[in-house]
């Protein structure tokens, strides 16, 4: 790429990033200062296109995050204190974090596996494109289901007087007499499946479509059975994408709030619900900023999950090119 070459016109799929800074300096002898300035200008011009998005991220993602992080270490008068973080990592709030993480892990792994099976069935089903289109559209709708309406439809289905509960009772098995209740952690997991499975289907489909039939044919030509193919080819290729998607589901479950709140009315101490109660002003005087410390805790958990997610995606991208 010469210094005057228009790197931006390269094909989107090119492996080298367009306009790599300094890539032309060694090839063409010339005054390096001018070249750097040219590159800098070109880089700036190119960056203009993402300024609106950058502003959006700065105002709606970074600013709240910084405000939460600062507020977590301030008392009501604005002085530095560690008592908020101390309160947020002890007692009921620590229990809330554990409950949130437990709920999120269960409602990420379980829908992850079920969603993968469903997505595979959709990809390979004979119905062809029509079925795929219907399934993707439906998954898009169900993945955005949430909040009070979702809680309501499950109360109507497996609530104490719900439709399925009544069916089971008429068959001689009342789930509510056998320790089951919708308003528990298990109930919340069942409800979360309703939007987590479609989300998994949506995010794992591209990875499944990236599994080329040629790989399977090659494996079969070498005498592999179905299990061998999945053990040595399909599984390893799919694993980073799968784990990445599960981490995405983890984040989604961790921050889901309205459904659990409507369903359990706060009987399960989830961090998101605890933050919600701070937001509603149900707070002991002097502890107003503990909510921000809880928020900071959520940020830290999500940040760790996202770091792992990015690492996984980097490995997965190698195969999906």
């Amino acid at each position, binding site marked *: 790429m010469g210094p005057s070459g228009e790197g*931006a016109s390269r094909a*989107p799929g*090119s492996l080298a*990033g*367009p306009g790599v800074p300094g890539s032309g300096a060694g090839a063409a002898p010339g005054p390096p200062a001018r070249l750097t300035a040219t590159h800098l200008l070109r880089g700036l011009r*190119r960056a203009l*296109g*993402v300024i*609106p*998005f950058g502003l*959006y991220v700065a105002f*709606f*993602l970074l600013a*709240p*995050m910084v405000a*939460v992080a600062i507020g977590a270490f301030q008392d009501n008068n604005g002085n530095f204190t560690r008592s908020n973080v101390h309160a947020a990592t002890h007692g009921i709030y620590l229990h809330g974090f554990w409950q949130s993480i437990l709920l999120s892990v269960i409602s990420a792994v379980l829908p992850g596996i079920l969603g993968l*099976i*469903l997505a595979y*069935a*959709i*990809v*390979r*089903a*004979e119905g062809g494109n029509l*079925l795929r289109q219907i399934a993707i559209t*439906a998954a898009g709708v169900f993945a955005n289901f949430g909040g*009070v309406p979702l809680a*309501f*439809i499950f*109360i*109507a*289905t497996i*609530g104490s007087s719900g*439709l*399925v509960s009544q069916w089971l009772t008429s068959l001689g098995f009342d789930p509510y007499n056998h320790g089951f209740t919708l308003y528990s952690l298990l109930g919340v997991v069942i409800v979360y499946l*309703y939007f987590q499975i*479609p989300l998994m289907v949506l995010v794992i489909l*591209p990875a499944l*479509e*990236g599994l*080329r*039939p040629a790989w399977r044919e090659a494996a079969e030509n070498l005498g592999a059975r179905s299990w061998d193919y999945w053990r040595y080819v399909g599984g390893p290729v799919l694993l980073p994408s799968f784990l990445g998607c599960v981490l*995405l589901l983890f*984040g989604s479950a961790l*921050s889901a*709030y*309205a459904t659990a709140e409507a369903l359990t*009315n706060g009987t399960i101490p989830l961090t998101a619900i605890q*933050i919600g109660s*701070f*937001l509603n*002003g149900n707070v002991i005087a002097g502890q107003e*900023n503990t*909510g*921000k410390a809880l*928020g900071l805790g*959520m940020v830290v958990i999500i940040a760790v999950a*996202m770091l792992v997610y990015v690492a996984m995606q*980097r490995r997965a991208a190698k195969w999906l*090119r």
Partner: protein
Amino acid sequence: MASLTRAAPEEIAPPGRQRTVFRGATIWRWTVIIVAAVYFLLPLWAALRFAGISAFGSVISEPGFTSSLALSVRLAVINTLITIALMLPTTVYVHLRLQKLRRLMEGSRSCRSSSPRWCLSWACSPSHRASSRARRGCLRWPTWCWPCRSPTAPSTPGCARPT
């Protein structure tokens, strides 16, 4: 995220064992799809039965329904327009010119699931609380008592719960 290669779905099925395997796999796939369809559609049907078809007629005449619906639709439309106006050009631009930022964009997409909590918590500070109360005041929650889960007058003055 679109896959670059479209798989050729047809596998040449020679006679004998492979055809049986293929048929078994087909049954398995359709079983999965049907079970999933039941799981997703049954609750909707149960909710429809629970609420009663007649409720749809009377809900329109409920006081406050029209304004709530209009507000919801307005918020949804504004949200959608802002999202499309912001994200469509940016995504196309990043895809064509700034390949290096694609991963960052995908990362920010993932963050969407966790961002509401932070913003909520931010709004939690005392100076923001009064305004957020006022904001919630204009979104009246319909009559549904959550502690006892029955369609009666709310036990606490409720509000639209943010998702």
